[in-house]
């Protein structure tokens, strides 16, 4: 009951930012999404999360251990290319770095603005416009659109930072199927998208055990929600102990 009420309150908050004409539809979709997720408050109040799994190639010929940690805008992910060789990308929330061993260099390189934005979008995947909306975000219902053979509800969020996020939810289960985020930076289109699948309950919340992002397909083996994270994970290179 508490959960449903909570979802309803959030949906109302969301709809205060919607266009009047489609606010009831937006509300319905978000309520269904929250209902499908389960304990949505867990995500809404999420301070940190991590995942472990494998990054796999689409043809199955390549599979590598993948780990990620997120806290607010802070993020870090590691891809074990080979034993002892780990590709790493991390951000302290305002700056970011990456180590790409395939360049034969282990020296951290700073992330540029588009990359930082993409890192932030990934980090905020569960702090999204449908779960924890900003009051300045405008949500619009765009009708249904076929996605992978099924009609999905399509919601678009216009954020105050100029980025636009599009959410596709499954009408049957209510779950989020895909999110696309886009913005313009110095004339270049910055995009990030994630397709979500293989949902399973994790600590009372339905979480996607498969995440196909721009970097590849992640098969999640384990999520951990609201854990205490070692801040050196996100520290700048000279302070980075790892």
């Amino acid at each position, binding site marked *: 009951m508490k959960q449903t009420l909570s979802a309803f309150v959030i949906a109302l908050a969301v709809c205060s930012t919607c266009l009047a004409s489609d606010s009831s539809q937006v509300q319905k979709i978000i309520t269904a999404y929250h209902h499908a997720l389960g304990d949505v408050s867990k995500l809404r109040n999420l301070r940190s999360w991590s995942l472990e799994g494998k990054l*796999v*190639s*689409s*043809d*199955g*010929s*390549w*599979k*590598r*251990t993948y780990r990620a940690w997120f806290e607010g805008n802070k993020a870090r992910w590691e891809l*074990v*290319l*080979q*034993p*002892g*060789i780990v590709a790493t990308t991390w951000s302290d929330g305002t700056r970011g770095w990456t180590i790409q*061993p*395939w*360049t*034969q*260099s*282990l020296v951290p390189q700073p992330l540029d603005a588009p990359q930082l934005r993409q890192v932030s979008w990934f980090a905020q995947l569960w702090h999204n416009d449908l779960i924890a909306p900003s009051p300045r975000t405008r949500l619009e219902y*765009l009708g249904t659109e*076929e996605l*992978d*053979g*099924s009609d999905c509800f399509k919601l678009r969020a216009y954020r105050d930072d100029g980025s636009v996020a599009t959410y596709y939810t*499954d009408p*049957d*289960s209510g*779950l989020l*199927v895909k999110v696309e985020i886009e913005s*313009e*930076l*110095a*004339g*270049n*289109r910055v995009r990030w998208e994630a397709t979500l*699948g*293989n*949902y*399973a309950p994790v600590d009372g919340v*339905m979480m996607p*055990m*498969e995440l*196909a992002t721009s970097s590849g*397909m992640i*098969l999640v083996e384990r999520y951990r929600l609201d854990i205490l994270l070692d801040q050196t994970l996100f520290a700048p290179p000279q302070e980075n102990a790892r």
Partner: protein
Amino acid sequence: MMQRLVWLVLLVFMVAVLAVAAQQAISPAVLGGLSARALGPATCSGRVTAIEATYVPIDSAHPNDRRLVIYVGSAAGGVFKSRDGGLTFEPIFDKQDYLSIGAMALDPRHQDSVLWVGTGESNVRNSVSIGGGLYRTTDGGKTWKKMGLDSVERIAKIALNPRNPDTLFVAGLGALWSDSPHRGLYRSTDGGRTFERVLYVDEKTGCADVAVDPADPRVVYCAMWQFRRKAWSFSSGGPGSGLYKSTDGGTTWQRLTNDLPSGELGRIVLAIAPSNPAIVYAMVEARQSALYRSTDRGQTWERRSAAVNVTARPFYFAAMAVDPYDPDRVYRLTFQLAISEDGGKTFNAFSYGGALHPDHHAFWIDPINPQHLLIGTDGGVYESFDRGRSWRMFRSLPLAQFYRVSYDFDDPYNIMGGLQDNGSWMVPHRVRGGSIGNCDWKSTGWGDGFAVVRDRVRPEFIYFESQGGDAVRRNLRTNETRSIQPRAEVGMPKLRFNWNTPIVLSSANPRYLYIGAQYLYRSTDHGATWQRLSPDLTTNDSTKYDPQESGGVTRDNTSAENHCTIYTIADSPLDERLIWVGTDDGNLQRTPDGGKTWTNCVQWLPRSLPRGTWVSCVEPSRHDRQTCFVTFDNHTRGDMKPYVYCTTDLGKTWTRLQTDSVRGFAHVIRQDLVNPNLLFLGTELGLYVSLDGGNTFARYKGIPATPVRDIQIHPREHDLIVATHGRGVYVIDDITPLRAMRAELLDSPLVMLPTRPTVQRFESGFQEFSGSDEFVAPSPSDDALIAYYLRGRHLIGPMRVEILDSSGAVIATLPPGKRKGINRIGWGMRMNPPRVARSPNPGGGAFGPTVLPGVYTVRVVEGDRVATGRLVILHDTSAGLSLAERRANFSSLQRLYRGIEELAFVVEQILVLRDTLSVRARGVGDSALAQRMMKLASTLDSAYYTLVARKTSLFADTEPQLREKLADLYSAIASYPGSPTDEQERLIGQYLAQIERAGRWVESVAGSTLADVNRQLARYGQQPIVLLTKEEFLQQSAY
């Protein structure tokens, strides 16, 4: 009570029946996982009907940092957008219902985001497509909203009030092939929310042009045009045509006649000089067509040039522009770009032929640099920086307009076909080791291209044609050509060949080549001579074949209006004597005896088919001699409905296929070569598929709603080849899964589907740095394809696809597709990569060996459901290598694979031992022991770097050690599928021996020095240090 019960039972039964029927109806989602490859060509592109361009700031923080954004509207391929001045383009209109573009206009207030698009091309040639209304985007093309005018078949121009763009005018040209009450000039004053028609003449007269005075937007000009096309004629002009002016923003109109030609007028093209809007130009089609100029906003006119390059083909060339700064510089687009510097008195034309494709329809002048021009032609978009003296083509617009398509049996096979105004072309369906680029398309013929056929007996011969049946044979080895069009002998009637004449290779006897005039001809000597097989098979209605008189005010005879001709020919694949012929005037003829006798089967067609309807395709069944499918196309009489029929008794009775879900008039139907119930239907608005013999059709959405003019199925590769009249050729690779997708399976939650055997290829890529400005199409995937059907999207719970070898072991696990409908994924046919020795350097064996050809099992696991199927992998015989050589290669790779893993184990033993010794030494009180332990750690460290390279910087020598040498050898052997060389085999032996020695050394260290250390540790009550075991190593996660 009993009666009510009976009714209830009946009701339940009916609901159940309806529910089952509903469940089994194919939907577009079923087909979605079978993607199509768009092959182009972009090298010749296609007809461009509208261009809009603007400089847009890259973002609000950099208002002076601008890029040229270009929108290109095409004849039937939708709208493309470039954000980089024409280097690259992306389609932005593909999800809309109509892709024929008549006009576009940018909102001057929001040039970065708001674009209006009117559908329905207004260059009303015989092959023009259709539109269905007005659209607007407010986000630069990401999303579109239909703004109405759905019944206006063609929109010729959109003109916005530059001061208040919420007021806009839309020139509704309307229907081409029939009367229409929806023509006229429309106006909106509320940004397109509502439209009112402000000028209407009659059902035969549409609005062909509109222009708003930029200085005084109350002044509006428009051109009304009476026109009509029939299958056998075109008429431009009539009493409805005229030039009109409004001085009150379009509310009232006055017809302008002062100084303009008297008599019936045709099409009028307008242009206002932006720098002096009192000057207006009008190209007026009349008995004496000419350019007229007014310097007083249309009150009086002066006749200017009447040169051919100004007045040519007004029905087709409807674009004119005035320089933004010079009111006397006028650009007129016809066959060529004609430029006047003296207010239209004289024109120079220096752009004809050569680098620039003729036939021009769209134009843009850079307002910042008027030397900079964009022009849209029948062959794409060109750009000039010297006011038209030299041009470069945009090479990434795949707008080709095919009429017919065919294939050959080369490997890779070639696809060939003819294009509207762009000759004939062929392309391999895949390029070994690479993608399909513009350079892979080869021209085989000229003119407007139609049928192109490769001779199967003498494959050096290819047949092509230009308009009106001008058939030519080309020898592909020598490039010599020979005209082979049949000619009428003295005393015979003139031969009538359709604009798009059928040239057909027999499907039953490859020696037979057919061509159709009003008679059917057959050649058995590669086109050198022809035998007439029939009498006149058409209606031979002399009132319908006199194109000399066609054109209306301006006579126009290009063979486009040739009528009473044969349009489609096909013999039965099961009987070469059984030939079906369809004509453009509605006859459906059949001979059972190679042409001795003919029967017009149209007499037996149901009344649902209007008599005289154009027969667009005959498709005799490959499964049953008595069965034939036929499509009819009645759009030339204003009827856009699809007519598709089937007979199973050689034409005596007919069944109309259920095409309720089909949009657009029908061009072609093909029956699958394997599954007789699988049909492919091409219409003016896309591709449709039926799984149940035509009871239901579903649109295939992998191809946009562009006209599908022809379809072929390659019998060897099982590919569906789709020729569109707007977006070139598409190939749906391997339709085997679709063949197995019977209608009764649609309700099953999970069904495994077969795929064609995969030929295992070892093709390497190339090194090319050709920039971003060319269209590139992918070759088909070399992966082994796996297909299955899901009734609904899989979203909750685990799902995976596994590959099992003949022993039942799982050798690969793939991320599955989870879409509703058919899913298709690829397996790279590789084993898991080997575990490699730890190293600061990447590499060392990053991929697994390619598995051997054979039969593998595929297992799809979705929750509790499991579906299994077979995957057949074949040896590539074209490489000239035997299977034994391939096996020898695999065997060597396996030895290396095991060696790499063994080295990884040995290295891990060394590193674990080294690190353990270092750590434990710190906790030992006995300094001598600690030193001994550290010394052993140091020895191990040195040993490690004899096995693994030390350096790690880019471009530096990495001092290859055993690990790197192994990787290099592994890579070299893996990249070639044949037997390794003797040298490679020797090296394998040497490297494996080194690994073995290294392993023995580690064992010896463990057996002597480490044992001694452990004895001393025991004295201190400490646990012994043990060597990593193979089991422990294997339990570690590889990566």
